């Protein structure tokens, strides 16, 4: 499944060591350490302005880090030209040269290396064949669809025989249908060429569908760098849980601890949850900020006698405030007495066996081992700590 495991010695491993990038007063990237194994499909994921594109451009050699080193296969490449690094970049809008045919676009790198015309065109056509665009060899970029342009851009990058291919939001210019199709093709091409792909995106589902390794970023820092499954299922911080979606994040101050349970509170709202076993977390104490996540699809809903009913441990009571049909499941939003949101994803057969209506009082429960304890982030605790229950964005 993971090419990085199959090819431990693959070329194109990348290491960022203490990399900081400033643009004047603003810090785009803040002291980042990151290792990406060779032959890996890595997605840099984050909202716009989080520094992901800056990292990509520093690896590509279109920006220089203010501090720190960028290593490719163990060699510091800071100050080197893109071609000397063995990287190739695919730009967001592809940046195909509008005055050159597909063949000449793809042959551009060979032209800069002084390869004679007939030979470079022949080699460009071979590369076009590999991306199944040979029949479009004589067309100009304006005559191609978005998906076709992307394949030409891929061919133009791959002909440089790079160790690392850098893709800046490669799917953002495509419509929804094509995006899903090209996403699959990118994965296949990566597997075929066996080189490192670093793909910048702000779409969570795109990242986890494609990547061996997902790097979630925010405000110039790495929040989590892990496998797609870990990032989604075991987010490290509340930010990652919020950003990836699919999780309910409960945050607050621990007000009491008794017989293996915490009470966490924020404002006039309290929830009792099973405390982590002492081995699993650095035993938080009363008064500490605490964050925990529960997957939306692991929450069970039962009808409650009233909205004020006592839920007990690992449960929330509230009213149904939203019902969205999603095909195989339903997204049920629950609003508790304090107006905080909580979401349960209920399988369709379960829901329709006893359909809930808007305003119905319900208890949302989860098993103790579905609790996922999050690492508090110093800078962010104050911002998120004010809410006990915060549903992750859809």
């Amino acid at each position, binding site marked *: 499944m993971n090419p990085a495991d199959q090819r431990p010695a693959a070329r194109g491993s990348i290491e960022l060591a203490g990399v900081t990038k400033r643009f004047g007063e603003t810090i785009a990237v803040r002291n980042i350490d990151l290792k990406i194994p060779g032959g890996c499909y890595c997605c840099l994921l984050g909202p716009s302005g989080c520094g992901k594109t800056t990292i990509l451009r520093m690896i590509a050699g279109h920006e220089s880090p203010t501090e720190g080193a960028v290593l490719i296969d163990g060699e510091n490449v800071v100050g080197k030209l893109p071609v000397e690094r063995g990287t190739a970049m695919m730009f967001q809008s592809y*940046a195909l040269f509008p005055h050159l045919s597909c063949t000449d676009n793809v042959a551009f790198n060979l032209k800069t290396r002084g390869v004679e015309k007939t030979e470079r065109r022949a080699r460009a056509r071979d590369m076009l064949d590999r991306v199944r665009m040979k029949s479009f060899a*004589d067309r100009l970029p304006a005559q191609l669809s978005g998906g076709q342009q992307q394949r030409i851009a891929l061919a133009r990058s791959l002909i440089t025989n790079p160790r690392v291919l850098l893709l800046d939001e490669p799917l953002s210019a495509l419509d929804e249908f094509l995006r899903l199709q090209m996403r699959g093709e990118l994965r296949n091409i990566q597997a075929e060429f066996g080189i490192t792909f670093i793909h910048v995106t702000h779409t969570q589902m795109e990242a986890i569908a494609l990547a061996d390794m997902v790097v979630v970023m925010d405000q110039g820092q790495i929040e989590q760098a892990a496998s797609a499954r870990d990032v989604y299922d075991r987010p490290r911080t509340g930010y990652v849980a919020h950003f990836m979606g699919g999780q309910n994040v409960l945050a607050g101050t621990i007000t009491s601890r008794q017989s293996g349970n915490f009470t966490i509170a924020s404002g006039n709202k309290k929830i009792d949850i099973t405390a982590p076993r002492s081995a699993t977390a650095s035993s938080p104490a009363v008064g500490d900020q605490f964050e925990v996540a529960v997957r939306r699809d692991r929450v069970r809903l039962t009808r409650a006698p009233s909205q004020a009913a006592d839920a007990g441990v690992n449960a929330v009571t509230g009213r149904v405030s939203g019902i969205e049909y999603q095909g195989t499941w339903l997204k049920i939003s629950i609003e508790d007495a304090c107006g905080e949101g909580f979401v349960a994803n209920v399988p369709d057969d379960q829901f329709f066996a006893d359909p809930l209506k808007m305003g119905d009082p319900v208890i949302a429960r989860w098993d103790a081992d579905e609790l996922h304890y999050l690492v508090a982030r110093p800078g962010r605790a104050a911002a998120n700590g004010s809410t006990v229950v915060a549903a992750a964005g859809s």
Partner: protein
Amino acid sequence: MQKLQTGKRPLSFYALSIFFGLFVLFLYGPMSAIYILSFQGPTGGLTFPMRGWSLHWFDALFSQQRTGDFAGAFTRSMILAVMVLLLTVAISVIAGLAFRRRFVGAAFVFYLAVASLIMPGLLVGLGVGLTFQTLGVQTKWFASALGAQLTWTLPFGMLIMFAVLSRFNRAYEEAARDLGATNWQIFLWVVLPILFPGMIAVALFGFTLSYDEFPRTLLTSGAANTLPMEIWGMTTNVTSPALYALGTVTTLVSFIAIALALGSIAIIQWRRSRPVANVSSAKEPE
């Protein structure tokens, strides 16, 4: 919706149509009269009616003794216009690229260059002429007049290049650098070809502005006349339809220049977006 489709037009449509008709009449009426009168018969005069039709006055135009040195002035104007064209294109492209870097004092330099658009042309010409006189250098159409005309064409050229470059995606240059091109290769193989249609527009402006430039050239062209000054002279000396023939010929030259420019832009656009069916089938047998 149905009301819109009945074909009844509001009164304002007819009022505006009459206004537009008058505009066209005033624009092209006098010019058309000149073009028609240039084909007067040999015995015809400066006014209607036409006394037959002939090319007599075109012939008269090119025989120097009757109308002054038309051929010489025309040649000088053409050479000067081409020199102005080449310099305007070259300097505008270079300046446009320089201004993209937002160097210190860029705004000041920009206003300094563009200010000559609002300076009275006659005064610019006078100043250039005086400067040459003070320095003891003779004014010549290919030196002092060339400089005076550039003060007029360069601001236009630069403004066009700014507009063209504002739509130029820097990612093209980065992509080229990413693919191993040197700065010179990027300029030659990527930047210049993409800017080329814009350069044709600058060339057209440079040529036509120079070709009919009068106020800046009047006091800087030295002993030999350029075409507009020759025409000016003729309006006072020549009292025959040869004057009209001159108008027809110079207009024709302007139209040829415009047609060449627009035609080459159209060809480039067509080449970059030509219908695909015949292209791929012709060259790609598989």
